[in-house]
């Protein structure tokens, strides 16, 4: 039951299939890395699972609850949506304070004011930005904004956390904090984390398992250790050696 299963997923643009996943299984309390060349379908996969992209077909079994992704409307998908946290590569901050930005997800869920105050404070402390609560969100640096984007989803304690190249534009200092937070929540919370990354070193040090996506297909997946030391497919071998031409 503690598994996230994806089956027969197909995403198409103007009639052309750009992603096809026959089956993928993600276990609870693990961090999964999704790697692959640019344009291979990594972000599309994450967006389809976050219900931001409507696929042509596909089912998602979220810990026993099965949903048909192709026919899910905004209203019908809301209960599932509220179990997911999504952090994009470039976070969008609303024109208000950092506190209000982080509190937004809780307000959508009807959480009472006292609980919002303590949960937001806790989330801000977690990403080491407690002092920015009253600051206007638009005045944050890129690294700070990305950490606030992480706090904004962690605050409502999602079961699933999807991150789309969250550290692509960050300096090593912010990357270290970001990775520290991800490791900490993996150990303390019941959560499944999927992270799309181009940073192979990051995938190696952060994840438990990895998937390699190429030309809209999952070509190889397995434990991170085997993925990087004993790649089976020629495509992954080429990719890891930097020989892949695409």
């Amino acid at each position: 039951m503690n598994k996230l299963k994806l089956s027969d997923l197909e995403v198409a643009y103007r009639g052309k299939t750009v992603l096809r996943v026959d089956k993928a299984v993600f276990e609870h309390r693990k961090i999964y890395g999704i790697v692959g060349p640019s344009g291979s379908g990594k972000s599309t996969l994450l967006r389809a699972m976050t219900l931001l992209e409507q696929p042509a077909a596909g089912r998602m079994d979220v810990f026993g609850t099965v949903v048909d992704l192709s026919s899910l409307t905004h209203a019908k998908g809301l209960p599932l949506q509220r179990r997911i946290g999504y952090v994009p590569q470039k976070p969008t901050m609303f024109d208000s304070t950092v506190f209000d930005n982080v509190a937004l997800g809780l307000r959508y869920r009807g959480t009472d004011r006292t609980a919002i105050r303590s949960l937001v404070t806790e989330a801000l402390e977690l990403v080491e930005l407690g002092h920015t609560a009253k600051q206007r969100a638009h005045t944050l640096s890129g690294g700070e904004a990305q950490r606030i984007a992480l706090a904004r989803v962690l605050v409502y304690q999602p079961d699933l956390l999807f991150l789309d190249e969250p550290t692509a534009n960050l300096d090593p200092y912010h990357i270290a904090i970001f990775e520290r937070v991800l490791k900490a929540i993996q150990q303390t919370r019941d959560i499944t984390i999927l992270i799309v990354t181009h940073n192979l070193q990051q995938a190696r040090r952060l994840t438990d398992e990895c998937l390699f996506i190429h030309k809209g297909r999952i070509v190889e997946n397995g434990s991170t250790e085997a993925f990087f030391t004993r790649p089976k497919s020629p495509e992954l071998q080429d990719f890891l050696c930097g020989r892949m031409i695409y």
Partner: protein
Amino acid sequence: MLMTPEVWEVVWLSLKVTTTAILLGSLIGIPLGACLGLYSFPGKRLVIVLIYTCMGLPPVLVGVIVYLLLSRYGPLGSLGLLFTPEAMMLAQVVLVTPILAGLSLSAVQAKERAYWETAKSLGASPLQLVFTIVKEARKGIWAGVAAAYGRAISEVGAVMLVGGNIEHHTRVMTTAIILETRMGNFTAGLQMGLVLLLISFLFNSFLVIGVLNQLKTGRR
């Protein structure tokens, strides 16, 4: 002309009619514009074209239509609203709602899709999503409200037709100006016009401030 009680009465009625019309028009126009900016559905383009067309509705035409609706043998004749401030409010609602919807639509569309996606991914319901984006686009929407207010308060054709310019009952600033001018009281007409201009200036100042703030936020 001095600010006599009669003049204050006319100014007060103008403000009351227009403010009420703007509030009612906002309740319809802003959510309508926001939904059009956020959601896709069959026939959306046609609805947008119709709204943009109605933004330039001739006030006299609106007056004639509302007059026919409210006249004794019209579909709403039984309400007995013709030649009342309520009829003037109704005519102004018809005039300003497309402006509010059209400018709200533009303000919401100017916000990147990323805002929509962020709110949705954070768990906003369809209604919460509309409220969030309206709040985010508030400066542009406020500019629309100010523009609509300016158009409504300075409008004369529709309120003349459905209000009738009745002293102490439906006389507003624009209809009073016409009356004074027809009677040869050009000074009184001009003075009333200056009051109207001052009110219009105040609201259009808000418009400019709103637009400038919007540009400033966009540059950040």
